[in-house]
């Protein structure tokens, strides 16, 4: 499986670390809504199809990535930086096309 890192380009999955489900929303740290915390910690969509995931390119540029992976085919349909501020860095794909 290849993941196309927005900075490094296509790399083998062995360079990446799965950081968990990308659909979860962390409750406010001060929240005492135990149902929300329970959902955050335990509830998963577990879809048979496209799934939002967080990965880290731990064996490369070490950035965190927001990845959409198909759980049936492992097809990766989208990869983006998980955090803003790296916008100007994602230029390799544009360079490759020129």
């Amino acid at each position: 499986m290849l993941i196309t890192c927005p900075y490094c380009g296509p790399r083998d999955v062995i360079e990446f670390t799965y950081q968990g489900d990308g659909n979860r929303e962390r409750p406010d740290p001060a929240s005492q809504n135990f149902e929300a915390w329970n959902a955050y910690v335990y509830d998963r969509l577990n879809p048979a199809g496209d799934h939002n995931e967080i990965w880290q390119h731990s064996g490369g540029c070490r950035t965190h990535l927001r990845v959409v992976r198909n759980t049936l085919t492992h097809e990766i349909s989208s990869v983006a930086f998980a955090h803003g501020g790296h916008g100007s860095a994602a230029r390799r794909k544009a360079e490759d096309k020129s």
Partner: protein
Amino acid sequence: MVERQSPLEPEFHVGSHGNFEHGVEIILTETRPGSIVQLAAWPGEEKKLIAAIRTVAGLALPDGAGGGLSDGVKSVFGFAPGKFTVADEVEGLAAAFAKVVTPIIGTVTDLSHGRTAIRIAGPKAEWVLAKFFAIDFALPAFPIGAGRSTTHHDVFAQIQRTGADQFDIYVFRSFARSFWKALCHASEEVGYEVQ
């Protein structure tokens, strides 16, 4: 100044090795830069850091991910968004950067004692490195001066292409001897010379 010892020393055997009857196709050396510095910009401060690199090292970084250049004495390349590795033959680069890269712009980390720089050159350099790393070493995909960060068996490596047939590899100092031995073994079948 205290003389720095090489971690490769017990396995560093100058001369030709392996299958070199038909010629040596790989040259392995340790470049031993005096300074290796890692610079990181806070989000939005990248341009100021690139300007600081130009001021201190005199190197104008090309735009784009993984871009870099080398003038034979100093080298710089990007290895992650807003992060750069700079190497210099002489010591004192970290102190020079610390005066220019303020805490508002980003951080300076002196890795001079933390990394070992190994140079692999020769017509089969791409071929040998392709046995180690699952990245494209062809010249159009990996131009001269550019840098890449990747791993070999969980040993993190930063690679800069410093010539058409030449690459500088920065590895953790504590893993450098093991990596060097592996590189020598991988070069045996085409004949290599340690200089």
